[in-house]
Structure formats: C-alpha cells, structure tokens
C-alpha cells in the first residue's frame, strides 16, 4: 500500500512533505539500536521518539516513513533533517497499540 493512502486511512497528520513510497511492513520501536538491527526497508516506523537519531536510523534502514504517536511533535530541526533525507514524518494522537491495530486492519503486517 502506498504511504499516501495509508496516511489517509489512519488520519495521520504530515509534518513533512509526503515522499510517497510503498509501505511493505511495519516496525514499532523506541530504540534506535533495535531499529537498526531489526527493521526492514519499506517498513513504516512507529515510535514515540522525536530525537534526530530516529531520522538517522530510519534513513539507514530505508524506512518508508515515521509515525510519531501520542501527539508528540518533532522539533523544526528534526523536521528539516527528515525533509532532507526524504523521509516523511506523520503524527497521530493514537498510541502505538492503536496505530498497530489500525495498520493491521489496513492489511499491513
């Protein structure tokens, strides 16, 4: 499923440009080391972390995009970093479990 369609279904709010890509899976983690070790290219990264190192990790493993949960807002410098890396960041007031269930309903495994 394309990122744009998924963002619409989950009512995610984009804080960067869309950078539409194919979402091939999901990885939920708040640890950059875990993301580096286990996330796969094309995965949607769902996290509560808004530190710049999350962008660094997502870029390294070629994440499709980042969904920041529980209404957290990344700082402008982090948004700028993501824009340059062409990785979209979305925010949602939902928690990670709620996002996970919605992604499952959308067919993302």
């Amino acid at each position, binding site marked *: 499923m394309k990122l744009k369609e998924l963002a619409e279904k989950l009512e995610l709010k984009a804080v960067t440009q869309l950078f539409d890509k194919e979402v091939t899976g999901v990885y939920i983690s708040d640890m950059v080391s875990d993301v*580096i070790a286990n996330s796969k290219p094309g995965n949607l990264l769902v996290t509560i972390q808004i530190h710049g*190192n999350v962008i660094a990790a997502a870029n390294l493993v*070629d994440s499709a995009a980042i969904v920041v949960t529980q209404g957290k807002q990344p700082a402008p410098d982090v948004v700028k970093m993501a824009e340059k890396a062409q990785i979209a960041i979305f925010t949602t007031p939902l928690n990670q479990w709620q996002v996970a269930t919605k992604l499952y309903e959308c067919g993302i495994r």
Partner: protein
Amino acid sequence: MTSASAGVRYQMVNVRPGHVIIEHEQRGQRARAYFSDEPLPPIEEYREGATTWHYSGTAQSFQFDVRDNETGEVVSFKELLGLLYYACAKEGSPIRELGAIAEENRIATYLALTYEGPDGSKSVLAPAKVRVLNRLFNERLTTPGKKILILPDLFDLYRSMSYGEIMLDFGLTSMEPDGR
C-alpha cells in the same frame, strides 16, 4: 538477527544486546566508553593504575557480526561504538558540510565511530570492515537512487564529540535502580 538471508550477500548476525557504559576520570576530566553485555550495566567506580574511573551514564546498544553468505566468513564489529549521522554532528563541522553535499546527491553519510583503546588511543575500523558495513546497508535499500556512505572516523571525532550525538539509546535503561 531477523533479516532474511535470502537474496542478500551480507547479513547481520550474532546480535548481542547490551549497554554502552560511559565513564569519566575525575582529575583529568577524560571520558571514555566501553560495551558491556551484562544484564545490568556496571556502575561501580574502579581504579586503573593511578586513575579512578567513575560511571557517567549508560545507553542501550548492541554489538553484532556480519556474515558473508557467499563465503561464510563472519566479520566481528566489536570495536564499533556507533554510527554518527552527518546531520546530527555539530553545525559547521567538516562531516556536516560533507554530508550536506552528499545528501543533495541522495547519499546519506555516516561516520563509524569506534571505542577507544584502554590507553585512550584511537581504535580504527579497518577499511575492509568499513566496506562490509557499506555493503550490508546498501544492498538492502529499496528507494531508487538512494545510497548509504559509511566512512571511518576521518575527522577524529571520537574524542571531541558528545556521546549523545551518536546513534545510541540514552535514557531507555529501565532496569537501573533509582538514584543513579
């Protein structure tokens, strides 16, 4: 490691979760880091010759090896402390400038930082290992035109930078007792 070996030559294997322990020497204001795979990060101060080392902080991390699925060779990356993304480096620093130029060409630049030797000397990641790291991450990319460039620490940042700038997980060690 969970990555499927099918279709990829290089695979991260033997992933060992643990902690990067950061410590400082009170008199000389020196700081250094090492990896511990103990369940709880060691925090006791200890003497090393005339120097007493004190615990400064912990970050969750991991060590890993990389297996070449064609040859079966397994390369250890025990000396690797972490990767520094160019955009997380200090404003105006050479790596930041270099990385910005590279990014305009869809190349994401990282510096491979290593642990210091016990005597404080710089530990260098061998060029062959740097190449393996580059192949490991690049062969998985699916975004058209994107490249990863991992460089050795050409700028000697291992001393001057804050450990917080490296991709490490600070503040996530839930098993630490209060008061540390």
